[in-house]
């Protein structure tokens, strides 16, 4: 009951954020976005036809009415049909979001897991050559552009100049083995690029926890190192780790990875949204941006609840 009350209060306090995101995006993407009128018309349209199309696209209504309509669409989760293809927006998202999720999830999970693991190893050997090697590698990894990593991995694994083991681009997934074939190279590139940042962040968190008094005491009592690392250090540094992971989720889920999708020609939601911006497909844009904002608020709530789960001292008020 207490949790439910808290959840409702938190969701209500997220409304200004949703209003802000939708308003700024609405002004940028819808009001100032590309005009689709003449794309939908034939040659030499009459004034009447122009007005008819503008009316159909909703361009002739006042700004606030259109924004109000948008908010109504967001609350009913019904965004109508795409201006470009006529496909239902919900159908379009239902088709593309799973692809983006399947594409980014392995890299996201592996990048964070390996990051925590490497950070634990580095922190355990703090100051030693293993630590210096891992942290030096992290700085090098941070300095390599995502785009360069993608091209290099594609050359290495998918071209005749390298191992030529995986498809160059595309997404023809009908079975698990197809999935593995198409997802491997993008995943490698994602993990490679994320690992440097993640390892550094997690190591800093873990080292800070390591210097606490309770860890010194536990060590003095003869706690074995692995138990010290897992129980006394990792568990106590979960809050910043959870924060980092949770807050990257909304962007990963909804906007996918635009760069990966456009480079490998994968029809995910990032690519669809980018195309929607360049062609001015307003219903798609409104849906993607609005849902991202909603997801952000839900993530804020979920993160707070997770804090409570990993640390009973945290009170939800």
């Amino acid at each position, binding site marked *: 009951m207490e949790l439910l009350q808290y959840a409702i209060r938190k969701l209500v306090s997220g409304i200004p954020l949703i209003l802000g995101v939708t308003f700024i995006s609405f002004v940028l993407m819808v009001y100032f976005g590309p005009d689709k009128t003449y794309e939908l018309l034939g040659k030499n349209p009459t004034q009447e036809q122009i007005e008819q199309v503008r009316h159909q696209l909703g361009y002739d209504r006042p700004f606030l009415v259109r924004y109000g309509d948008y908010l109504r669409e967001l609350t009913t989760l019904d965004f109508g049909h795409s201006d470009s293809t006529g496909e239902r927006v919900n159908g379009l998202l239902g088709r593309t979001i799973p692809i983006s999720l399947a594409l980014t999830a392995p890299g996201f999970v592996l990048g964070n897991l390996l990051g925590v693991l490497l950070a634990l190893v580095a922190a355990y050997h703090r100051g030693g050559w293993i630590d210096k090697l891992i942290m030096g590698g992290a*700085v090098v990894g941070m300095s390599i552009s995502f785009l360069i990593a993608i091209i290099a991995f594609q050359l290495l694994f998918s071209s005749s100049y390298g191992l030529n083991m995986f498809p160059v681009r595309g997404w023809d997934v009908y079975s698990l083995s197809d999935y593995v074939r198409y997802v491997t190279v993008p995943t490698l590139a994602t993990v490679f690029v994320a690992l440097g940042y993640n390892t550094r962040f997690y190591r800093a968190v873990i080292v800070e926890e390591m210097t606490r008094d309770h860890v010194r005491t536990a060590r003095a009592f003869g706690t074995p190192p692995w138990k010290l690392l897992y129980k006394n250090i990792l568990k106590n540094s979960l809050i910043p780790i959870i924060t980092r992971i949770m807050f990257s989720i909304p962007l990963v889920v909804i906007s996918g990875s635009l760069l990966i999708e456009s480079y490998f020609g994968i029809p995910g939601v990032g690519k669809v949204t980018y195309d929607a911006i360049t062609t001015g497909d307003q219903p798609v844009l409104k849906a993607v941006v609005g849902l991202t904002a909603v997801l952000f608020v839900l993530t804020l709530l979920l993160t707070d609840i997770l804090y409570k789960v990993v640390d009973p001292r945290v009170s939800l008020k």
Partner: protein
Amino acid sequence: MSAPSATAVPGDTGRSRGSLWSKAVYKLSRDRFGMTGLAIVLVYLVAALGVWFGLWGQGWSDVTGPMWAAPSGEYWFGTNVIGQDIFERAVYSTKVAFEVGLVVAVLSTLLGAVLGALAGYFNGTWIDELVLWLKGVLDSIPFYLFVAALAFALKGYAYSMHVAMIATFWTTTGRLVRGEVIKLRGFEFVEAARALGVPEFKIIFRHIIPNTFHILLVQATIVFVAAIKSEVILSFLGLGVKDGVSWGLMIAESTQEVLAGQFNNFIWASVFLFGLVMAFNLFSDALQDALDPRSVA
């Protein structure tokens, strides 16, 4: 990064009476990685200034050579698909990278400093709420979509990429400055200034913001790196540099060339980019170590 702490400790004790800044400069000057990074950044800066003053890199758009010439005495790094000199283009791009990095780093750090200081000083009032709300909103809009939308909203304005980065990159600086200012405004020197009747905006800009300078300096170096890296990806997506050439545009054109087995464009643009980003990262880390007395290596 790990500073050579063994060499820094004996020096520190002798200089304990120095100011925070002289201690920081001393500590920084003893950081081998940091100083190497700084030296490399300065080499890049000289290259960029040379292009700026027209000393070299001027032939970046001339079509002089054959298609895909191999590296030679005339074309040091070879030529690209239409016979342009890759060396000239890579050097010219250094200037473009510094332009993007400096403009975005300076302006977004300033914006973060002002908004963060206002939010921190007026902590708990509507100003604070407004800044926090704005930060939350900007952090919740997917970055690449924001840049794309802004580029179209500004009708192909050549600096829309810069505007988008400045508008979104200030948020981390703002958050850090806000936290620091909340701490600072309880200090006696602020109280003294207020008791003397110094106007509030003067307290903020003359007394409080200069005391957050250590945060601003580190943040500026971090944003500089982020801006250069984002430029590469945005240019590839067609949202970045509009006129001229940049490492991002070179890599974008090389994506077709690598499939034909021509790697010169890709490799040299990547090497130039990696060198500058890596050097700046090393310098930024050393700066952070030197300026943050609480940092644990």
